[in-house]
Structures are given as C-alpha cells and as structure tokens.
C-alpha cells in the first residue's frame, strides 16, 4: 500500500473533505464537503448581510430594526465560530488519519464502518449535544448580545425600529464612572451591594453552621421535629415568604410593630419604640439582612449536618482526653472538616446574594427613597439594572454596561475561589 503524505492531506483539507477523500474515507469526506458547501451557501444568502448588519446596525430608520440586526449578526458570528472550530478539527483529522493509515491502522471508510465508529467514539458528543444547543441559544447568545449592547446608545431616545441604534464605544462606561450623577448612584448602589452581600451571606452561613452544631448534640430529644422546622424556610418558595415579610414589616399595620415589639417590651428592661422598617433606609437594610438570614440558613444547616455526621467520633474522644475545650474542638476539628467540603458552596452563597434580585425587589421595591438614576436606597446592582430597563425612561445600554461589570466581578471571584479549592482538578 502506498504511503500517504500527512502534510499533503492536511493542505488538501483546507477545502474540508478533500483530505478525507484522499485518505479513502469516502463517507466522511462527502459529509465534510457538504458541511463546507452549506456554510458557503448560508454565508452568501444570509450570513454576509447579517455580519454587515452587525457592523452598521441598520441604515434606514423605520426599515431596519437595529436590535434584530444585532441579534442576527451575533448569531451569525457564533455560527461562524462553530464552523471555524469544525474547520480546525477537519484539518487536524485529515493529518491524524493519514498518519494512522501509514502506521497500518484500520480507519472507517464506508458508510457502515463510519456509523459503527460514530456509535462508539461519537457517543459522548451525541449525549452532550442537546446541552450545548440549549446553552448556545439561552446563555451564549444573550450574553454576547448584552456584551455588544453595552457599547451602543440603546435607550428611551433610541427605540427601534422608529430610530436607529449606533455604536458609541465605551461611552456608557465613561458615563457611569465620570458623569457625576451616575457616578454617585453607582457608588451608592455598589457600596450597598457589597455590604449586603457580605452581611447577608455571612449571617446565613453563621446561623447555618451554629444551628447544625447545636442540633447535632447527642442528648437532644425531638431531633426529627426540629429538623423539619429548620427546613421550612427552604421548603417554602422564597417569593412567598419575602412578600409575606414585606407585609409583616409594614410600618403601621405590620406584625413586627403591632405584635412582636409590644410583646418584647413586656420582658425587656428597655422600651423599644416602633420602627420605620419600610421608610427608613437603615431599617429596611437591617430587615433585608435578617430576612435573608432566615431564608438562607437551612441550606447551610443541611449541608453542615451532613458533614458533621461524617466526622469520626474518635477525633473528639482523643481531643477530650488531651483536655481540649469545646471551643478548641470546634476550631481544630469541626470547622476545618466543614470548610474542606463546603467552602465552594459558601462562596456560591456570596455570589448568589450579590445578584439576589427577588428579596430586594419584592420586599420594599428597592426603596425607600431615591439615590438618583432611578435607584432606591436598598437597590443592589441587579435590581437597579431591572429598574433601568423597565422604568419609564429605559436605559438599555447603560444597564448592559452594569451587567458586564456584575458578571466580571462574579466570575473573577468564583474563578479565584475555584482555582484555590482545586475544582479544576477534574480527576
């Protein structure tokens, strides 16, 4: 049998399929050639215009819908990237197969052989295919569009198709950091977002761990009942409880001011006055953090309880013999064991609360008051974005720019932690 020249077949595959045909893989070659032809035709009929549209965002107001052009263009961009990936695979495949043939290995040539090899080697790709298709349309495409939107002037003055949208570079980011009004709002909202994230997440983690450790003691009777009660805040859908709490914390008629505080005043030496939960920014924030503690601790509690059950009793017995105090035992045995397993989960609590829209919006609508730019005193970045896009004067471009900043922060923090916790070591 004649020796193939891997380099030559690789060059042939610059037109996908030719290299495979040269290798004698008829079926594969024809399919690859077909994909290539399809892409060329698609590009000529639709793709080229779509990419041009992405650059111009339309030329005639009223006829061209700038946002549709952007979405189509982005989709075409993704299709092109996927084709390029196929192209690279194709070139490498041509060379690798040629080398394999030269080494005397059998490669699938006919339709039947190819189908058989697909059934075994292609099985993993077949199984993950639906996940990828869904992710492309519901995550990758919207994220790319948002990314692009951040560099446009898409706002209430530019609503397609009546008017065109145009690229404005980093103007939105510039406005956010340089324009005094937006800068003040961004600073205020961002500051509270950070405080909120740290306080609320830490509170729920601390309550969760503390409750798990307390409830894990051997002598406790009625563990089952307590276990059910402690899970209730997780089991009831959060939006239901948040809306209920919004009523319970009502300034004039809510149960906290009408019932709980008078009740506490019976027992406490100090007199607690009624508190303006909904109209005083400080107390709204306090209420929000407490409610998130209430809502979020059961998840941590369940997780930590599971970990506690797996810690060997011998460790504690040995520590007792050595004269360790309960605090020492907790610090040197319990806590390290919990962190070893649950640290990544704890971090997800922080990133979750960073974007915890429901509680902020449903409790007090981001209010009270106004810190400029449409944001209220208890608005965090994500709820500000929501207001920027749903208000009477929507600022889609600016909202997208903030979205990018949020995403960058969340991804940076998560990557850092995952790297540290070795989540990337996949084996």
């Amino acid at each position, binding site marked *: 049998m004649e020796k193939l020249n891997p380099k030559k077949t690789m060059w042939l595959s610059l037109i996908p399929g030719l290299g495979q045909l040269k290798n004698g893989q008829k079926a594969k070659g024809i399919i690859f050639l077909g994909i290539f032809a399809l892409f060329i035709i698609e590009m000529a009929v639709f793709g080229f215009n779509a990419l041009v549209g992405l650059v111009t965002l339309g030329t005639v107001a009223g006829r061209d819908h700038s946002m549709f052009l952007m979405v189509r263009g982005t989709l075409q961009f993704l299709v092109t990237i996927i084709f390029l990936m196929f192209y690279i695979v194709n070139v490498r495949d041509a060379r690798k197969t040629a080398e394999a043939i030269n080494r005397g290995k059998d490669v699938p040539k006919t339709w039947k052989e190819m189908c058989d090899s697909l059934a075994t080697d292609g099985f993993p790709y077949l199984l*993950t295919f639906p996940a990828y298709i*869904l*992710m492309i*349309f519901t995550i990758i495409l919207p994220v790319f569009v948002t990314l692009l939107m951040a560099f446009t002037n898409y706002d209430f003055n530019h609503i397609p198709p009546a008017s065109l949208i145009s690229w404005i570079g980093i103007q939105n980011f510039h406005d956010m950091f340089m324009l005094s009004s937006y800068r003040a709002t961004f600073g205020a909202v961002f500051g509270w977002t950070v405080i909120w994230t740290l306080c609320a997440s830490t509170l729920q983690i601390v309550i969760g761990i503390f409750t798990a450790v307390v409830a894990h003691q051997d002598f406790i009777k009625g563990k089952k009942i307590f276990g059910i009660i402690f899970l209730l*805040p997780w089991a009831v859908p959060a939006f239901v409880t948040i809306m209920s709490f919004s009523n319970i914390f009502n300034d004039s008629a*809510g149960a906290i001011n009408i019932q709980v505080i008078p009740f506490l005043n019976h027992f406490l030496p100090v007199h607690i006055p009624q508190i303006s939960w909904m109209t005083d920014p400080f107390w709204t924030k306090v209420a929000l953090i407490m409610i998130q503690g209430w809502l979020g601790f059961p998840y941590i509690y369940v997780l930590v309880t599971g970990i506690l059950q797996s810690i060997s009793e011998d460790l504690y017995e040995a520590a007792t013999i050595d004269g360790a105090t309960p605090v020492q035992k907790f610090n040197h045995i319990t806590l390290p064991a919990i962190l070893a397993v649950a640290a990544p989960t704890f971090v997800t609590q922080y990133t979750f609360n960073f974007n915890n829209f429901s509680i902020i919006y449903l409790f007090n609508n981001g209010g009270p008051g106004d810190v400029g730019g449409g944001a209220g005193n208890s608005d965090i970045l994500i709820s500000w974005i*929501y207001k920027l896009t749903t208000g009477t004067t929507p600022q889609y471009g600016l909202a997208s720019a903030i979205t990018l900043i*949020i995403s960058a922060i969340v991804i940076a923090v*998560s990557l850092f932690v995952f790297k540290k916790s070795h989540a990337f070591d996949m084996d």
Partner: protein
Amino acid sequence: MIKMAEQIKVKKQSSIKRNRFLKHFFTYLYMILLSIIIIYPLLITTMTAFKSSDVVAFTLDFSGPWTLNNFKELFTDTLYGTWYGNTLIISIFTMFVQVAVITLAGYTYSRYNFAGKKWSLTFFLVVQMVPTMAALTAYYVLGMLLNGLDHDWFLILIYIGGGIPMNTWLMKGYFDTVPYDFDESAKLDGAGNFTIFWKIVMPLVKPMIAVQALWAFMGPFGDYMTARYLLREEENLTVAVGLQEFISDPKNQQVALFAAGAILIALPICALFFYLQRYFVTGLTAGGAKG
C-alpha cells in the same frame, strides 16, 4: 482528709451536673427560639388565609371567624387558577427536559474520555458563573425576534438553558460517586453503552435525579424577574407574578387573598420537598465536594 476529698468530689459532681444542666437549657432555649422565629411568620400568613378578606395585615390572632371564602374568591374572581395552570405547564416541561439533558451530559462527563473534555468542562464551570438573568434585555429582544414574548415555550427554554451548566456539573459530581467497577464488569458481561447507562448506573443516581427534578420544578414557581419581564398579558402570568399583584398596590392590599394563594403554592412544594429531603444530604455533599 477523706471527708474533705469526698466533699470536693461531690462539689465537682454537682458542678458537672450544673454545667450539663446549663448546656441542655441553652441548647433547648436556642432551638425553641429559632423554631418560634421560623414558625411565627409562616403561621400568621397561614392564619390570615382563613380570615375575612378585610384584614390589612398578618397578625397572630386565634379569634375567629374563620372562613374559606378567600380560596373560593381566588378561583372565581381572579385569574389565580389560570396562573397556577400556566406555572404548572412551564414547571413540568422545564423539569422533564432539563433533567433529561443534564443527566445525559453529566453521565458523559463522568464516564467518557473524549477530545475536548477538559476544555468544555471548564467552559461549563465559567458559563455557570454568568448571571444570565441580568441579560434581560437580550432575552426581550430575542423574544421579539422569535415571537416568543408572552409564550410559555420561550420562558421554558430560558429556564432550562439557565440551569444546565451548574446542574450538569452537580450531576457529574454525583455520577463520579458510582464506582467504575460496575461499568467494567457489565462491559465484560457484554452490555452495550446504553444498557450500562440505563440498567446499571441510572438506578444508583436516582436520588440525585429526584433532587434535580424538584429544583427544576420549583424554579419557575420561584422566579419573579424573568417572568415579570417577558410575560405581559394578565392571563399569561405565572403565580409568582400574579400573586404579587394582590399586594403590589400599597393602598389596596388584598392580604387575605394573597395569603390564600400563597398557601396553595407552598403546600404542594413543601410536601414534595420533605418527601425528597432524605436525598438532599447525600446529593449536596457528594456533588458539592468538588465544587
């Protein structure tokens, strides 16, 4: 001397006893206080559902009269039944498709070695961190373009897609806990890819699948933001959005009606939750251990 030693011993014992008493006392005190804090808001919401519809706020009040009128009113005077139906349809579709997709993907990543595996798994991990719901405007434009606004299928698609990266990752973690030896011995017995997956591994990961199904099912019930943004017509809303309308107007809050609607959502979900609860711990620790 002996007497004194005995006295010290007795003292010591009584101090141990006192310490133990204090420990028990404070443990129970904490657990009971926490229980009250948890139950109180839930209890007063539940009670309000059975009160006459002119109550303005939830309070603890055991005096009657009790009534079922709010539940009747929900289904006769409001669109609650329609919203509930919408949400159920969205939830059920989301659940089935998402569980199928992530089970296949999770299994693949756990069991096969293939070109691009590590690369794409990292991709899943990074994509999982993107707060997709912040891309609201993009979803809105996409919905306009595809004529998906106000349609269930569009929302279902978004819910399914959004949950894939994170949950595939969790599923993979759980599949990893099933020993490979099982696959190997089945392979020796001549089982094919599909048989190994369906007959050998699947039965062992049922707990995690149950948990994933519950989460996927609960998602649409709990989501307010996306549904509010993408659904416009009254009769197309989901319960989360619809229910909020009862109390969104501060001057005319229908709290009793809201409470009744809330209970009808919370009860079945709570029941499912506690039914599947025993799987949570294994699912969480096994899947979460690796991130």
